[in-house]
């Protein structure tokens, strides 16, 4: 069973990171959120719509936009702006409205100057930003990103995370961010940890990364700062609890 007794509710405007080893059910959970997969038992509701209700399928997929891991395999058109237009075109939006949305979405991810480019000329981070713009153009309320940075270099990773954080902050978009990078998860408001298709932890980054032992046992890492703080504490050095970011560690050590 890929998902087992998962009981999770994500509020509008939340930024949730989902962690877990390979095969823990993260991607399966993500695909439930826009009805690519349907629950075999139990219910998955998106903005009050049951994902098994076939007549609401396109409303659900418009509400929840998805960005996948491989940037090459989710860009459909041979020109950046045509690809961003793909979603609204499918929804039957009039052409001048599509043009407006495409311009807005490309501006929102900072890709306006690449509008006429062929996708294969872009870097991985830029391709992922185009993919994000493609969901924004559908007027998506919730963005689900399934390991969007797994195939990117550090620069691309930063680009994507910055873009997502800005969209969350400025447009109040709901974000579900699946990742293997703990530094990225630390940017979320809430972290959900999965194991064998079950949710085993659910809390703030501080609460989750504060328990380094527990994370280790699950085969997961913690951000470097949290690990250093934990090791120092074991050596008997007095440090405040719940250090997650480098800045917090630096401030605590300088005191």
């Amino acid at each position, binding site marked *: 069973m890929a998902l087992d007794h998962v009981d999770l509710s994500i509020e509008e405007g939340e930024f949730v990171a989902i962690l877990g080893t390979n095969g823990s059910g993260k991607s399966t959970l993500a695909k439930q959120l826009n009805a690519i997969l349907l629950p075999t038992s139990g219910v998955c509701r998106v903005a009050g719509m049951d994902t098994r209700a076939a007549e609401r399928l396109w409303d659900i997929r418009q509400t929840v936009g998805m960005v996948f891991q491989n940037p090459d395999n989710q860009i459909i058109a*041979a020109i950046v702006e045509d690809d961003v237009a793909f*979603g*609204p075109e499918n929804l039957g939006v009039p052409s001048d409205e599509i043009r407006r949305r495409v311009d807005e979405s490309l501006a929102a991810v900072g890709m306006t100057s690449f509008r006429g480019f062929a*996708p294969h000329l872009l870097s991985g981070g830029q391709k992922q930003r185009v993919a994000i713009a493609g969901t924004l153009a559908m007027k998506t309320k919730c963005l689900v990103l399934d390991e969007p940075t797994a195939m990117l270099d550090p620069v691309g990773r930063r680009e994507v995370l910055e873009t997502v954080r800005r969209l969350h902050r400025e447009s109040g978009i709901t974000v579900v961010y699946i990742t293997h990078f703990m530094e990225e998860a630390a940017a979320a408001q809430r972290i959900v940890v999965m194991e064998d298709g079950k949710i085993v932890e659910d809390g703030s980054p501080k609460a989750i990364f504060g328990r380094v032992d527990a994370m280790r046992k699950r085969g997961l890492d913690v951000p470097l700062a949290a690990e250093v703080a934990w090791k120092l504490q074991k050596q008997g050095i007095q440090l405040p609890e719940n250090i997650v970011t480098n800045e917090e560690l630096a401030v605590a050590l300088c005191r």
Partner: protein
Amino acid sequence: MLTDITIGQFFPGTSILHRLDPRAKLLLLLVLMAAIFVFDTPGGYAVLTGLALLLAATSGVPLSMYFRSLRPLWWILAFTFLIHLCATPGEVFFHFWIFDMTKEGLSRGFFLCLRLTLLILFSSLLTFTTSPLSLTDGMERLLRPLKVVGVPAHELAMMMTIALRFVPTLIEETDTIMKAQQSRGADFSTGNALKRVRHLVPILVPLFISSFRRADELATAMEARCYRGGEGRTRMKELHVGGIDYAAAGVTALLFAAMGAMKMAGI
């Protein structure tokens, strides 16, 4: 190496041909191709040749490209010409061994070669001045009425678009696979033809497997973005038939009338 390949033969520009609607260009190409066979008089050929040369000269595409597009046809042209020269009965003007070259053969061979050359030239004019994407768009619109008889116009166009989009990606991937196999000692450049074909297997197998995986992921991504076929779909870039297209159609009609008149008069 492999990544230098460009798709299609499109030369961006602003000539009259570039500004025509792709549908208009496709239809006019068909009409002109028919004209090559219908108006088979010296006068007709003169008009069509003149038109082709005028369009080529004003297209803004380097003229050498047109010669290059004729190059694969060179042997066929020469062969056709020789066969007609020697095999047409009539007034012999040169005799060599068992070959009798006739004046009738000379003119028949010449006009046949001209016909083939014109066909290639007119199609090159289309592909050189129309981007593959607008060509696909144009074909989709033109084929749309045929949907009632079961022609999947939208699906064909979507396939073309995706193929065009993935050509560079797959070329890059082929390059990577070749390098990976070469670093394991694979040899692609020696041996006879059969051996070289066998050497392609370790490239093609991984390429095919990865293409299937890509197709699967792409299909999921398309569904996630509400793709559900051509029904009810709108387009951001609508095609517009403008004055220039009607003018082109008008000029073509006039040329047709002129060629028809010349054929009646036997010129």
